[in-house]
């Protein structure tokens, strides 16, 4: 990383290249494609949370006029066990069963059959004509009950993984994980003060506004083109190929514009069904989930039960910390308990700690990634406990965190030593921020909390084309969820030394550009950005060579400065610099079109830390919470597009506050989700929130040419505890469980007698 930070365009906030189409309704999202001859597919879903499928009779539906195809579990190839690979992980066979149940349904809303028909109405009527006979089983809905030795089993072949020896009988505990260092018993003995807490959080959904949708078009040779909203069309292609036992080369995936994902659009649900229906019908099949389907049958994030114990000396030094954490996986193994366990103590330099984490099957939808998967839940527990610890020690909560904060060289709880990180700078900024010292109105409270996410790199490809007039087209493979085209253009413009307006970025389909992993893990600006920069460097090298050829000098006698090839000092002073446009105009004579390429597996994603300050007011008669002010401070490494970095901080804050205050999956005793809609799954609306203040800290990531750290996930982590700590400060009562809904707050206040 060069010291000079005198950037021309990086750190500005220009209008995104795809903007006009998105404010005029032209941009095409998942459900916006209509093909000639298109028919509609719909899914029949289980009315039971746990049942064995005895019989499925599709004959009446198949005979209906206007019905083209009916499929159910028996029509699918047997998917082999094996890792899906890529970002999402998990088991292929589980994925296959999750998108279409075979012998058992494991949650209310689990797909059991699908139809394609001339119209949505006929498809609905066909679904109603499918007969399914179930043997209803007792649902396992509560995480503690699921872990009990005598609990009904979701999967008779589930033997807990990662134990020293394979257990002798199956259980709902799919896997355990432990992290430990030092001697916690001794650590607690050294402590002057010990706090303990127990925290429960129900499942929550990403709540992207666009329901999943796709159009699949299969030809007579079995080749399919699939248009869909996805965070990663290459990985969707891979999953579809594995689930359907197809050749990847026979599948072309085109990523539509995507209306939000937050991790929820990293796995397939509809796409393989649409391919099968389209193959059977020999027509394009369009499938769209309803909002209810999205809640019931796509992956929310885990509900959790977490216990934390922290001991410290009088001066605030933490001597030991332990955590026990159970994460709901939903119907199939794969809760984010690993990252949750690795994140919980990550901000702190601890000598003695122990974390025990469980991946637990319950009769609820299989969880999917949700923004910093696993970390908001576990760090809510730790950051709440630290708030209590600060109170017991009579210490400022920021000072307590500063006393124990990790910095460069600190051995992270998950293993490696941290390179340069920005936690201490964020804490200093929070302490100095006016939001931390301004007076609070009557009845309000202030809470602070720290957030963290690892961030990932992974594989990316990029191509840079120089058009004949010197304008630049960047082609990459990451769906743009939050303005990443603009970031790519900024990095390309900065590297090439050309104006931002001269660069356009587009997202290629799986046949027109190189492989990229999903847009997720806060990796796109980091990893794909790195590929774009390298591809631009490839262009620069080519331009220098062509300038050298034009001038009849050696390549090392040509420099690239301010978007043009210039002769090195001392080289024939009469030579006029050649701009990108000049070189492009003459490209035919110097070797043909200019095309730069890069592909990489980006390493060295930098961890991103945050500190949030929340001011909340509690109506003591109704338990209602108003958010008065919120400040999000985060280390972005380097903000490429400043406004979109702020937007990530603000959006994460809003999601975290929603999770803290109102969002939850509510189930009845039979395992039916009772609030599968935006009316009662209460995400924040505009009038619920104040302006969200942001402060971007920049501790450049040494592994990225411009210092980028991933920035998208960390913002959702700290708001949960910041809100809980603010309610504690406002009321004097610790409410350990989320959401802190009005009935829960009022009941807690009454129980505490305040």
């Amino acid at each position, binding site marked *: 990383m060069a010291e000079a930070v005198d950037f021309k365009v990086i750190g500005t906030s220009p209008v995104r290249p795809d903007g006009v189409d998105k404010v005029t309704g032209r941009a095409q999202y998942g459900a916006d494609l209509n093909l000639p001859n298109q028919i509609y597919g719909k899914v029949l879903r289980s009315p039971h949370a746990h049942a064995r499928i005895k019989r499925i009779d599709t004959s009446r539906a198949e005979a209906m006029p206007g019905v083209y195809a009916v499929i159910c579990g028996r029509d699918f190839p047997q998917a082999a066990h094996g890792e899906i690979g890529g970002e999402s992980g998990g088991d292929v066979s589980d994925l296959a069963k999750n998108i279409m149940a075979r012998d058992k349904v494991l949650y209310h809303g689990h797909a059991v059959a699908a139809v394609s028909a001339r119209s949505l109405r006929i498809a609905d009527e066909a679904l109603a004509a499918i007969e399914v006979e179930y043997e209803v089983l007792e649902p396992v809905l509560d995480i503690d009950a699921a872990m009990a030795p005598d609990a009904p089993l979701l999967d008779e072949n589930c033997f807990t993984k990662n134990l020293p020896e394979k257990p002798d009988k199956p259980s709902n505990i799919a896997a355990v994980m432990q992290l430990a260092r030092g001697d916690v018993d001794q650590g607690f003995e050294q402590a002057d003060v010990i706090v303990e807490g127990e925290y429960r959080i129900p499942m929550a959904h990403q709540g992207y506004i666009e329901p999943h949708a796709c159009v699949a078009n299969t030809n007579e040779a079995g080749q399919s083109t699939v248009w869909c909203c996805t965070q990663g069309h290459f990985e969707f292609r891979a999953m579809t190929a594995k689930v359907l036992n197809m050749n990847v080369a026979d599948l072309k995936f085109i990523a539509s514009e995507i209306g939000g994902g937050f991790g929820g659009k990293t796995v397939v649900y509809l796409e393989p069904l649409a391919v099968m229906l389209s193959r059977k019908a020999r027509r394009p099949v369009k499938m769209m989930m309803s909002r209810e389907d999205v809640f019931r049958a796509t992956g929310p994030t885990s509900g959790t039960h977490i216990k934390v114990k922290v001991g410290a000396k009088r001066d605030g030094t933490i001597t030991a910390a332990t955590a026990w954490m159970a994460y709901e996986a939903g119907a199939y193994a794969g809760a984010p308990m690993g990252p949750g366990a690795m994140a919980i103590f990550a901000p702190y330099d601890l000598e003695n700690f122990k974390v025990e984490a469980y991946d637990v099957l319950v009769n609820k939808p299989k969880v999917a990634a949700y923004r910093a998967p696993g970390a908001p839940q576990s760090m809510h527990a730790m950051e709440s406990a630290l708030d209590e610890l600060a109170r017991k020690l009579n210490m400022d909560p920021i000072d307590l965190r500063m006393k124990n904060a990790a910095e460069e060289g600190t051995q992270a709880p998950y293993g490696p030593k941290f390179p340069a990180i920005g936690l201490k700078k964020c804490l200093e900024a929070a302490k100095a921020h006016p939001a931390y010292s301004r007076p609070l109105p009557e009845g309000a409270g202030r809470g602070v909390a720290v957030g963290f996410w690892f961030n990932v790199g992974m594989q990316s490809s990029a191509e840079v084309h120089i058009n004949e007039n010197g304008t630049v087209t960047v082609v990459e493979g990451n769906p743009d969820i939050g303005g990443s085209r603009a970031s790519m253009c900024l990095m390309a413009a900065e590297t090439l030394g050309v104006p931002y307006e001269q660069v356009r970025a587009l997202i290629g389909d799986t046949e027109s550009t190189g492989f990229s992993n999903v847009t997720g893990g806060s990796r796109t600006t980091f990893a794909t950005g790195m590929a774009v920069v390298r591809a631009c460097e490839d262009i620069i090298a080519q331009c220098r060579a062509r300038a050298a050829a034009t001038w009849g000098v050696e390549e090392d006698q040509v420099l690239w400065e301010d978007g043009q090839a210039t002769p090195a000092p001392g080289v024939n002073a009469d030579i006029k610099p050649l701009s990108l446009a000049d070189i492009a105009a003459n490209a035919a004579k110097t070797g043909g079109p200019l095309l730069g390429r890069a592909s990489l597996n980006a390493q060295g994603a930098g961890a991103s830390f945050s500190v949030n300050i929340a001011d909340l007011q509690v109506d003591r008669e109704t338990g209602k919470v108003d958010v008065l002010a919120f400040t999000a401070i985060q280390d972005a490494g380097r903000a490429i597009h400043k406004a979109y970095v702020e937007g990530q901080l603000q959006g994460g804050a809003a999601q975290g506050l929603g999770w803290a205050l109102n969002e939850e999956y509510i189930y009845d005793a039979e395992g039916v989700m009772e609030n599968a809609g935006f009316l009662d799954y209460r995400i924040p609306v505009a*009038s619920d929130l104040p302006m969200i203040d942001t402060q971007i800290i920049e501790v450049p990531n040494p592994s990225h040419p411009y210092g980028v750290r991933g920035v998208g996930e960390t913002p959702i982590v700290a708001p949960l505890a910041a809100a809980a700590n603010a309610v504690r400060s406002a009321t004097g009562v610790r409410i350990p469980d989320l959401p802190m809904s*009005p009935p829960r707050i009022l*009941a807690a206040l009454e129980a505490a007698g305040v």
Partner: protein
Amino acid sequence: MGAFGYVAPSSLDEALAVLSEHADHGKRAQVLAGGTDLLVQLRGVDREPRTIVDIKKLAETNRVQIGASEVFIGAAVPSAVLNENAELAALLPGLVEAADLIGSTQIQGRASLGGNLCNASPAGDTIPAMIAVAAVCVIAGRSGTREMPVEDFCTGVGSNALEAGEFLLGLKIKTPAARSADAYLRFIPRTEMDIAVAGCGVSVTLDGSGTCTAARVGIGAVAPRPLLVADAATALVGSRLDEAALAAAGAACSRAASPISDKRGTEDYRRKVVAVLCRRAAAAARDRALAR
């Protein structure tokens, strides 16, 4: 299976004829005003074919008339139109507030008092407010129109007193006298977009000394149907609407409530909060009446 149909009668007679014809032949017809409940039901819980009878083209259901002694609000007038009517908002601020609380701006562009009432949700926001101002339902049927106090209109969760072939034409409300005012408050977890966890409408009339001479209190979302709480009114009448009287009225609301625990709130919570809302709404109504 029958088929869906749609008619938009342009006269009251035509509307009644369609409804009667369906009633007589056992065919299902459903009246459409703003459609904000009906279309949600069509998508989910009730997809059965029927004839949809759109009453928005009738003069009567679109009428808002403010007379010296009586206010008439047509059954299909959208909330937004009520909210934009400054004269109405000044006269019946509580009722207009309640209409303004039904859903989003978008919903208010369609949703009507009449539809909110006929849908007969226990949590319908305008119903307690209408109870508070003693609104009277004007019901059209083949044998003429009949009237019914609004508190008698809802007969249970989702059921109302309309007979086959009848529909709600509008609501009549006595024009409030001097030193009379109403207020409506509801509790929701967010600031907007939620269904009431509890709601309370209060209207009061004060004499020259500020003593309450008449009151009505309606509560919602705390029983199978919105209720008129006579005991709460009794607690207010004769007082100067001081804290003690307000608390007594609130307590009466808690007693009258028979709430359930569900995804929106617990029984205990609803019982407590309806008292808080009653106190706050009565204080707001008092302050408005004093200012008149």
